[in-house]
């Protein structure tokens, strides 16, 4: 029998992050932001991170995005630690999409500069090739290419969101990290965003790591779910099983509270 050792796309083992916070004038207290996180991610899969504020979701995404932050444990991509990859290859793999578009886009530079930056630093394309790539990615997210010459301050919020998408997708990453601000958008924009992410997954087999709090949405898009609380991993597994038969206390409570009396129940 052939022992086909399958190497997963992303594997995280025993990830931990502690920072020292200054408590009194000379005393620094160690705060454990993340402790002992383990999960695996395959190509084309979606992993959803759940947990209330302060549970370390954004910190986890930042570590995946930038492995230079000192952490314990290992982050392996195709079996090789992420730190060992060249920065150019790493940026081509993993990109972070910030949906807090007000703060995440430099308001003083034009759009084509913002989109060109990652290409210029990390790839060897010539100017013409970069231009072409920018045009194509703007077409993909649904922006007209005349927007290249405007400043982000003069765009509407819809256009800024698509620009944030374009900036994340311009390097054609294999893993896309989406932070938790996607839920603060209004319902139409949020569905639109999720549809775009699902499109991307279908066409290019991108793996997604999303932070969501709404269990209904999780049921729609998640393959696996990882529940965090106070930096500790409470529950991890296949989303369908966990939501239909929750075992841990915290997951049970989340699902129970989701089905509360105030949630809308339309008869369809």
């Amino acid at each position: 029998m052939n022992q086909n050792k399958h190497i997963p796309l992303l594997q995280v083992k025993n990830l931990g992050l502690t920072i020292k916070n200054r408590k009194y004038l000379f005393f620094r207290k160690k705060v454990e932001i993340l402790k002992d996180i383990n999960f695996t991610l395959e190509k084309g899969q979606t992993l959803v991170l759940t947990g209330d504020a302060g549970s370390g979701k954004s910190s986890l995404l930042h570590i995946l995005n930038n492995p230079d932050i000192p952490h314990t444990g290992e982050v392996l991509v195709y079996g090789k630690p992420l730190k060992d990859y060249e920065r150019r290859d790493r940026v081509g793999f993993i990109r972070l999409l910030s949906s807090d578009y007000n703060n995440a886009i430099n308001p003083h530079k034009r759009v084509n500069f913002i989109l060109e930056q990652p290409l210029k630093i990390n790839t060897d394309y010539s100017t013409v090739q970069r231009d072409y790539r920018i045009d194509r990615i703007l077409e993909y997210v649904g922006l007209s290419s005349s927007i290249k010459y405007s400043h982000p301050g003069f765009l509407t919020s819809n256009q800024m969101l698509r620009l944030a998408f374009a900036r994340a997708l311009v390097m054609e990453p294999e893993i896309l990290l989406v932070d938790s601000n996607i839920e603060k958008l209004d319902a139409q924009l949020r569905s639109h965003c999720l549809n775009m992410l699902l499109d991307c997954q279908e066409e290019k087999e991108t793996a997604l790591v999303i932070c969501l709090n709404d269990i209904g949405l999780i049921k729609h898009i998640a393959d696996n779910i990882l529940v965090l609380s106070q930096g500790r991993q409470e529950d991890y597994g296949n989303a369908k099983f966990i939501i239909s038969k929750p075992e841990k206390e915290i997951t049970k409570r989340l699902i129970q509270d989701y089905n509360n009396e105030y949630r809308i129940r339309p008869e369809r």
Partner: protein
Amino acid sequence: MFDLNREAREIQSDKDIAWEIYKKSTTDMIGLYTLILCICVIFILPIWVNFDPLTQNVAERLLPPSWSDRGNLHHFLGTDEFGRDFLSRLLIGAQNTTKYAFLACFSSLIIGTSLGLMSAMSRSRTRKGVLHHIFDILFSIPSILIAFITIGILGASLPHAALAIGVSLLPRFIHESYCAAKKELEKEYVRAEISDGSSRLHLTFTTILPNILSTIISNMSQGISIAIIDIAAVGYLGFGAQPPTPELGNMLASGIDIIYVSTSKAIIPGVAMIVLIASIQLVGHGICRVLNTGVADAA
């Protein structure tokens, strides 16, 4: 059908957009025109016209300005107590004061901003602290006192006063540029750029410096105003430019002595200083407003 000409014209370069936004405020335009006028008159006009602030003419002492009864059109603004032409003294005096004020402020700005940026971008805590606080002791000593100390050591003259004022402006620039750069570093897009892989040097010049430009310019206009006032103050007390060199400060001083005899000699230098400082402030304010359009406020 598309109209390429019109569309291409609609894409304005940064300069055009900036000029259009600047033009909207009338007060800023007045400030700009006044400043241009002042600079032309103070710096460029003396190249062609022979202004003569030093010739004394005792027969024509203390003439009033030419629009009053006893005035003479030869001496447009009158003469001072030694018979020297007051208009020439005003222009050359303003030239002296402004020249050294600009010099002091700009050199202090460049040194201060680079120190502030270096301390904000550096990674080690000790280097950050040292660069940030190295000149803080100058904060506690008022600028005029620093001027006195310098002049006591080096002797009374205008360049020494300017050096002292420049030194006293240094900690303010360091502190402001450090705070602004620190605030920029916490923004999401800077973190995105760092994770994209730009080196810290590239990041400084591409992202951080343009974004803190508005803070730097507002500080610069404040700094120039303070420099002009302080140099004039040191000159008023007699420690700046020595007579017969004209300078706004010592002209004010000699004007105050003869204020009951000839009031215009005391008022005119003061008015000149007010006009200069007000126009510099208005231009600085306009430039900051231009740089901050399209940037949503945090709160």
